[in-house]
């Protein structure tokens, strides 16, 4: 008969405790895996500018967090961590494949001159802003309120709403586009 032995790997012990509700063990687990993830990102993502490496590390940590329920205690934890890290690095490459990275600092002056009016900033009236946001679905509305009105960080909002950064960015972009269209019609 097969018995379920307690895991020997320190990461597995920490994640087991974390999944049972031990927040401190979870923090220790995330701190323990972060340097390894950083190494993976540095090795596999050499073609990314160094300032993007930490963003990918955070994306991997968020991936581990959102999918921590998929680890089974009777399976080794390291292949699980590495698989998620690899997936997120590939995801970063995929996203970069459709976009060109240019340091935003180089374009600050032009952006200020070219920037389109923000559909929300053009409206001083709080009720008017809320009326516009009311056209969005509840999730998109919360993202717009958090990121655009309360100026919370996207990573922070992603954690709270249990969304990946990519998903959050897309939802925010679509919501702002919809708001701009509605605001344009109203004028």
């Amino acid at each position, binding site marked *: 008969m097969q018995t379920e032995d307690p895991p020997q790997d320190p990461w597995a012990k920490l994640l087991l405790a974390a999944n*049972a*509700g031990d927040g401190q063990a979870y*923090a220790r687990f*995330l701190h323990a895996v972060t340097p390894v993830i950083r190494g993976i990102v540095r090795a596999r993502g050499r073609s990314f500018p160094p300032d993007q490496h930490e963003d990918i590390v*955070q994306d991997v940590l968020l991936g581990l967090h959102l999918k921590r329920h998929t680890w089974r205690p009777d399976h080794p934890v390291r292949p699980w961590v590495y698989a998620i890290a*690899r997936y997120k690095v590939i995801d970063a490459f995929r996203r970069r494949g459709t976009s060109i990275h240019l340091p935003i600092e180089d374009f600050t002056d032009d952006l200020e001159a070219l920037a389109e009016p923000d559909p929300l900033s053009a409206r001083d009236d709080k009720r008017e802003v809320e009326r516009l946001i009311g056209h969005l679905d509840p999730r998109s509305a919360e993202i717009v309120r958090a990121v655009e009105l309360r100026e919370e960080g996207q990573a922070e909002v992603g*954690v709270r709403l249990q969304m990946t950064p990519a998903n959050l960015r897309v939802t925010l972009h679509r919501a702002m586009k919809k708001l701009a269209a509605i605001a344009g019609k109203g004028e």
Partner: protein
Amino acid sequence: MQTDDLIARLSASPAATPINPAQMTVLMAAAILIPLALFLGLFGTRHDLALAWTNPVVPFKTFLPLVVCLVSAALVLRLARPEAASGRMPLLYILPGGIALALWIGSFILRAPEARFAEVNPISLAECVGIILCLSIIPTIAALRVLRQGASTSPALSALLAGLMAASGAATGYSLFCTRDNPLFFVTWYGVAILFVTLMARHFGRRTLSW
């Protein structure tokens, strides 16, 4: 946000409920079986089912898609874990695929030219392909939703397998109603319907399963 701040926020979150493969299996099976039960309850099985099954070719019409459905279900559940790989499991498709091909070729050789595609007409095609497509919609959507609980690192492959599982499950149930026993008909047109659902599921489900 600094990485340490992110870790602090993440570790303050409540514990996650572990993934339950048995529950996922039950949900996906129910999504296939309930529409099939409604369909067969409403229209019934073919009236001569027992007699038809005395012909050794006819049971293959049910068992081939059933095997494909079961293999796909096992594979898609396995791939829901990020570290899992499909391994040698896809080799299991060789058996139903090989039998289907042998039935098609054998039937083509043995039948008189005018009898080969005699059952093919717009009504029979619309019925066969249309019913399999309709019966596949709910299980495909349900399977994709259930699989979002997992963490497939091959979302396109998982979505494709979800469609293959749903459509072959639908074809299994439909085969109990269908009276066209010519392998040239059922291998071809069940295959077309299953392939269509599979490709659609891959196309539309890939993003659903990305995370």
